[in-house]
């Protein structure tokens, strides 16, 4: 049906059309009102929690020394931003953490995707390496951070290593699964059209596995940040993790929270960039089902 046939009907039949339009408008208004309501309620929750925290702290219901309070945290962030931290300018700390996390993430994703696809495609590799990967995955990998510190020293390398081992596994398993679950019909179709094994890997398996891989990219960037922060916390010369441990060492609760807030903002921005890239890459997909989260 053409869209303009509805319009032609409307001209002949004015009254029902007007009523229909009225209904559409009121539906739109209701949707907008609901949207405002949700946004307003969100702000209210935030203000409520922060307000209660501030009030409890000031009134002495909770110990401000341990729990700090929003105004002090904000003050701490402001001081760090304008006067720098004890370890140097704030942006240097943020950049150090981001750099380690990004590098670890990129390396971990590369290794995970390549190995995942390879094992998903080559049965022999999967059979040989499968058990080892399972064993390594069962290991709580965060305990490797101190070992990496011993191996690679206080510099960024030890943090990158922690990030890599955290990132690798979820990406690997998703890529593996993605390569395994490729639609048989697409592979058969490509073979009939004349694709070689190599072409099937690059032009059928990898594109179909990308949505699986992307799912793991979101989670794994968080893991990369955890790896970097924990590494810095254990021993470093700069970074947000160092800010946390230094603040903790000087009994500065506000400093610990302030570092956490900065970290959260960094993580949210990174997530935003990833979502943007995903939208561009998946233009061929029907529609984003729901709104993600």
């Amino acid at each position, binding site marked *: 049906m053409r869209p303009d046939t509805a319009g032609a009907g409307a001209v002949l039949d004015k009254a029902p059309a007007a009523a229909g339009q009225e209904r559409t408008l009121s539906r739109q208004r209701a949707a907008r009102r609901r949207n405002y309501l949700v946004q307003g309620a969100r702000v209210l929750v935030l203000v409520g929690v922060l307000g209660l925290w501030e009030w409890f702290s000031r009134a002495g219901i909770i110990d401000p020394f341990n729990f700090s309070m929003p105004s002090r945290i904000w003050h701490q962030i402001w001081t760090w931003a304008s006067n720098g931290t004890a370890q140097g300018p704030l942006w240097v700390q943020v950049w150090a953490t981001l750099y380690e996390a990004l590098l670890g993430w990129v390396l971990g994703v590369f290794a995970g995707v390549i190995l995942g696809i390879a094992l998903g495609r080559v049965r022999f590799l999967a059979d040989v390496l499968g058990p080892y990967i399972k064993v390594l995955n069962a290991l709580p990998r965060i305990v490797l951070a101190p070992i990496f510190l011993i191996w690679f020293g206080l510099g960024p390398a030890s943090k990158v290593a922690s990030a890599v081992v955290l990132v690798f596994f979820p990406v690997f398993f998703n890529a593996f699964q993605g390569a395994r679950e490729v639609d048989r*019909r*697409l592979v*058969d*179709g*490509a*073979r*009939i*059209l*004349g*694709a*070689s094994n190599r*072409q099937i890997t690059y*032009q*059928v398996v990898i*594109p*179909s596995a990308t949505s699986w891989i992307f799912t793991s990219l979101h989670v794994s960037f968080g893991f990369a940040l955890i790896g970097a922060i924990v590494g810095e916390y254990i021993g470093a010369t700069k970074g947000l993790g160092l800010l946390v441990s230094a603040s903790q060492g000087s009994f500065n609760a506000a400093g610990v929270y302030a570092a956490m807030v900065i970290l959260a903002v960094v993580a949210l921005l990174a997530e935003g960039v990833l979502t943007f890239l995903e939208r561009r890459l998946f*233009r*061929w*997909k*029907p529609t984003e089902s729901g709104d993600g989260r």
Partner: protein
Amino acid sequence: MNSRTSPAIELRGASKVFRTPSGAPHTAVRDLDLTVERGEFVAVVGPTGCGKSTTLTLVSGLEEPTEGDVLVGGEPVSGIADDVGFVFQQDAVFPWRTVLSNVMAGPRFRGVPKQEARERARQWLTRVGLEAFEDRYPHQLSGGQRKRVSLAATFVNDPKILLMDEPFSALDVQTRALMSDELLDLWSGTGASVVFVTHDLEESIALADKVVVMTAGPATVKEVFEIDLPRPRKVEQVRLQTEFTDIYREIWSSLGEEVRITRERGAGHAA
């Protein structure tokens, strides 16, 4: 045997046994003898699950026969031959490629330069009436349009052997009739030999030179009927001819029995 005079496709005593997940052997087709001459349009009908798709995968080289021989152009099939095209029941288009890129896929896989592949793809898109849709993604098309993309993507490779597995069964009745006409139109002049699997007897008579009736599974050839309706045909008109109804009745008396056997077996399983 001379490969010039040999039939396009020959199955000689071909059987295919699958291993089921439980490990027990399952015979999908047995002792299959079938000949498709060059340029011939053969339709294969049979009850569901009898082994029609399996027959096509044997001819395509996607699967090997457990016993017997499968010859294409007089040569035993080993792997996937260059001149085979296959249209599947469900769309096998790449969802992440645009329409144009989907039709270019075959030539590109075979090493045709990009420019030439694009030109050939555009020609076939025009023939199936989708030239205005080349930038769309498959999910932005109707089922009939996606099928046209599959047809263009198959024909662009100039297949000498065309295998079609219930290609139109997912379409609504009107679209199916249109697509049948379009298929005949695309096929005429290519000289390709076609094996067209369907469970729709009317469709098979309207399209084919020869209708092969298969037995209830494990399938073997039961009877072969020559269809002497003149070409070029229009599916909707062919259906109205008295010869058509005669042929239909004749084939149905053969096919109906197998369908009944299959159905009773199903009922037996259910009981």
